[in-house]
Each structure stands twice: as structure tokens, then as C-alpha cells.
């Protein structure tokens, strides 16, 4: 098995007396889609926020390619190759679809500080944005306002923005939530394709999608890791059955 790109150990975050994330260990590898399961409030989103830097851990370590990054702010982690999407769609609604992706791509461009040139004509960020939009299946109608897109399209745009930053690690918080069957199928296909070249952490409630996609599954309950392993092991685990799957929480 290859070395993990992103690896967390003993990751803990307390809010007052409550530990939303309690001593979590997780490792993400290139070419592996790692799914994160757990009931609501299990600490899945907190874990993503800790890995992306939106939250600072109370204790614990996060290593990216061997380097400690637990204290770095989100922008520095992003530049090191961690991209994330948000559970609640988090796009620039007032910008065009294309400009959303172009701005995301611009973040990797040293000319992002230029004040004399026209951003909309910058070939490098345009090309990256185009590629990311294409990957996410959003080629058409990119001059529309992002806020006017359908919910599913906004989720696609969310992914396109992450891809435009050309990350190595993708932290995806419920990318399928609220999508129709057709949109969902397209997203699953996209995730499958991305999994070949990226390290992906996927939070998802859609069990069928998770078991179809995941190379590895970690189940969280009450802020702690309950079980972690290949899908077959998770499916067979009695503890998981009892704590989670038994509830029929789909």
C-alpha cells in the first residue's frame, strides 16, 4: 500500500465540553476513495473542517506528505493541494458560472496579484477553468449567473471550483445531497474518474453510492472512529450494524 498523502492522528476538537471530533485517525491515499459514514452529528463535517483548516484542532496532528499542517490556515492548506467542497453550496452566486471557476483557477496563478491586466482575458486561468468545468460536466451555459443554476448544477459547479485549483486531495462534503437521479449518476461517474488520480474523502449519506464507490470506509459515531476498513469489512461489522446501519438511516 502506498504512503498516505494526508494523514491525521489523535485529531480532537472540542466545543465547550463537547468533543465533536475525538481522537480521530484517518489516512487518505492517492487513487483511493475513502468514504466517511456516520449518523448526523457524528462529527463528519467537523473532521472535514479540521482537515481543510476551516477549524483549528484542539489537539492532534495532520500531516500532508509528511509535513505537519494542523496549525496552517485554510488558504495555505489549499495551496499545498487540499481542495474541499461544502455541505451547503458555497459558490459566488453573483458571478457567472465561468467566473466562479476562473477565480478558483486564478488562486494558483502568480499573476493573481496583477492590477493592470484584464482578469477575464487571462489565458491560463481561463483554460484551467474550462477544463474543470468540463470535468464536472458543466460545459454549457457558463455565462449564466451561478445563483440562477439548478441545485444539482450548483453542486457540480462547487466541484468544478475545487478541481480548478488542481488539488491532490479532495474533501467532499455530501456532493450528492439534494440531487436528482440523473444528476446523481453523473456525479458518481465523475467521482469514480477522479478517484483514479486523487485522494478523496467523501462524506455521503447515499449508501448505494458509497458502497459502489468507496475503496475504504470509515464509520464515525459520537466524534470517534467506530470502524475503518474495506467496504466488505464494514458491511460485515456487527458494531456498525448495531450503531448505524441498523437504524436504517439512509
Amino acid at each position, binding site marked *: 500500500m502506498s504512503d498516505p498523502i494526508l494523514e491525521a492522528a489523535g485529531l480532537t476538537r472540542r466545543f465547550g465540553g463537547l468533543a465533536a471530533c475525538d481522537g480521530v485517525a484517518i489516512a487518505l491515499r492517492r487513487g483511493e476513495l475513502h468514504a466517511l459514514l456516520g449518523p448526523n452529528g457524528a462529527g463528519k463535517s467537523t473532521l472535514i473542517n479540521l482537515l481543510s483548516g476551516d477549524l483549528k484542532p484542539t489537539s492532534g496532528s495532520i500531516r500532508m506528505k509528511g509535513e505537519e499542517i494542523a496549525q496552517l490556515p485554510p*488558504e495555505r492548506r489549499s495551496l499545498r493541494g487540499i*481542495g474541499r467542497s461544502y455541505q451547503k453550496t458555497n*459558490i459566488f452566486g453573483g458571478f457567472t458560472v465561468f467566473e466562479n471557476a476562473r477565480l478558483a483557477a486564478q488562486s494558483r496563478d502568480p499573476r493573481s*496579484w*496583477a492590477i493592470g491586466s484584464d482578469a477575464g482575458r487571462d489565458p491560463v486561468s481561463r483554460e484551467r477553468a474550462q477544463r474543470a468545468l468540463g470535468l464536472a460536466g458543466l460545459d454549457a451555459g457558463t455565462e449564466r449567473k451561478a445563483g440562477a443554476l439548478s441545485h444539482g448544477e450548483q453542486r457540480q459547479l462547487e466541484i468544478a471550483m475545487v478541481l480548478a485549483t488542481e488539488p491532490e486531495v479532495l474533501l467532499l462534503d455530501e456532493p450528492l445531497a439534494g440531487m436528482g437521479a440523473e444528476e446523481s449518476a453523473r456525479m458518481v461517474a465523475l467521482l469514480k474518474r477522479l478517484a483514479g488520480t486523487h485522494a478523496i474523502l467523501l462524506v455521503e449519506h447515499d449508501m448505494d453510492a458509497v458502497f459502489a464507490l468507496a475503496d475504504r470506509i470509515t464509520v464515525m459515531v459520537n466524534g470517534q472512529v467506530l470502524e475503518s476498513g474495506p467496504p466488505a469489512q464494514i458491511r460485515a461489522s456487527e458494531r456498525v450494524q448495531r450503531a448505524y446501519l441498523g437504524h436504517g438511516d439512509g
Partner: protein
Amino acid sequence: MPRRHLAPLAALLLVALFPLSGATFYVELTTKIMIMAIFALSLDLLVGWTGLVSFGHAAYFGVGAYTLALLSPKAAAAGMWSSLALAIAVAAVCALVVGIFVLRTRGIYFIMVTLAFAQMFYFVFHDTDVGGGSDGRYVNVKPDASILGFTPFDFDRPVHVYYVVLAMLVLVFLFLQRVLRSPFGRALSGIRANEQRMRALGFPVMAYKLAAFTLAGGLAGLAGWLLAAQSGFVNPEILSWHQSGNVLLMVILGGAGTPYGPIAGAFALTLLHELFSTLTTHWQLWLGISIVLIVLFMPGGLGHLVRRVRASLFGGGRDV
């Protein structure tokens, strides 16, 4: 040429021809308005485009004005180009230093902290002898505009000052329009729309904000220099909180984050002031009441109203 440029160009032409009327009082008044318009444009870079509501922008305006006053010898002229460059630089450096402090805060905090820091600048000039205390200081001899022995204009002649200020206004406007279309400007717009998302995308948001704050401070310094050069006098009132409130009012009433809003706001507010103050000594009462009514019944300011009217006239507004 797109139709949307027609009205502003017509207005520019009107303003450019206006001194031919020979009405000296109004030429000087319009000069002052255009200086305030530059000041308002610089503030709008923060308020309208970056989402930073600074209530202390007069500090940098005042620093620019005082820079000229302090550089001017008692009985001789300061060089225009060197003192102008220095005024911009000093104001920008002040903004940079203050920015490091104030940008650690956000929202309501930011409004209060910018106001408090501006008040600190006010007290520096008001309480100490740096700039003549509360009496202020005269620029006895207007700055000398000569370049290599050639003097293109004379700051003692109001019409010359008028065109210099008009040229500066056009330059600053075009410069800011270019900045806003640039990658840097787009990043600022992104920060205004959603700071968290920008950080997650890898933008060093704090550095961008600091750059914007510094740039806006420098441009305010330029406006301040022009004010001192035009009026030949500076005093601490230039950097009072009233001044900060006044310019913020221009930006908001004109329409924050619109290209022409701050300029329109500067003209509208100053002309209203002139109009009302000839009618009543208590014009501020009517201004205050108007502001309260505007906020209660017309969210978005005058600029928003203008856009709505234009949308209903021409069918569909233009996106900014």
C-alpha cells in the same frame, strides 16, 4: 461605443466645458466636489468592492493634505510632483500600518476600530504641534508644477486647478476601473462575496485586504494633497470623524460598488448641502431626516434607485 458610456461622457463634457461660464465661485465649488469624488472613489474600493466598511478613511485624506502643508516652506513653493508622490506614499504607509491592526477584526468591530484609529490621527494633529495644533497650517505658496523648467499649470489660478483636479479624477476613475477588472480586483470581489470560500480556494485573504486598504489610503492621500493645494489651508477637521462619515455617506447614497456611484454621491451631497444651506441654517436636520427615510424606505441607496429607474426605462438593468 456602448450606450452605457454615453451619459457619463456627456456629463464629463459638461464638466469640462463648465469653467467657460466664468462663474468662479462655482468653478471652485466643483473643484472641491471633484476632490471629494476622488476621495469617495478611493473609499468605495474598500466599501463597495472589498466589503470593508471603513469609518476612518479621512485619516489618510488628512495625512495627504498635511504632507503638502508640512513640505511647503513658509515663503516658497513645494514641488508639486515630489510632494504629491510623497503625500500618496505617506498616506499609503499609514494605511498599511493601521490596516495590520484593523484588518484583524471584521463587521461591526471593523467599523468601530477604523473610526477609533482615525480619531487617533485626529488627536495627533489636534493636540500636538506637528501641524500647528487645532489652528492648522497654511500653504502660503501654492505648489510649483514645473517639470524640467516648463510649468504646465499654475495652482494660483482656479481654472487651472479645476482642470488638474478633473484630469486626476478621470485618471483615478480609469485606474480603479482597470484594477477592478484585473485578477487582483476580481479577488477583492470574491472576498466581498464570500471570504471563507476564497480562503478555501487558497487566496491569502488578509494580504489582499491589506493591499486594498493600502491602495485606498494612498488614493485618499492624493485627494487630500489636492485639497491642500486648492484651498491653501489644512486643519484637523480634515481628518475628523465628520469627514469620514461624510465621504461614507457619499459612497453609500451614490451607490457603493457601482462605477459612477461615488462620483454621483459627491456631487449630490455637496450640491444638496449648498442648496439647503442657502435656504435654512438647519440643513443638517433635513439631511438627517432624508437619510433616515432613505434607509427605511429605499434600501440600496440612490444608486439603486437610479438603476431601477433605468431598468424600467430601458428594460433590464446592466450588471456591474
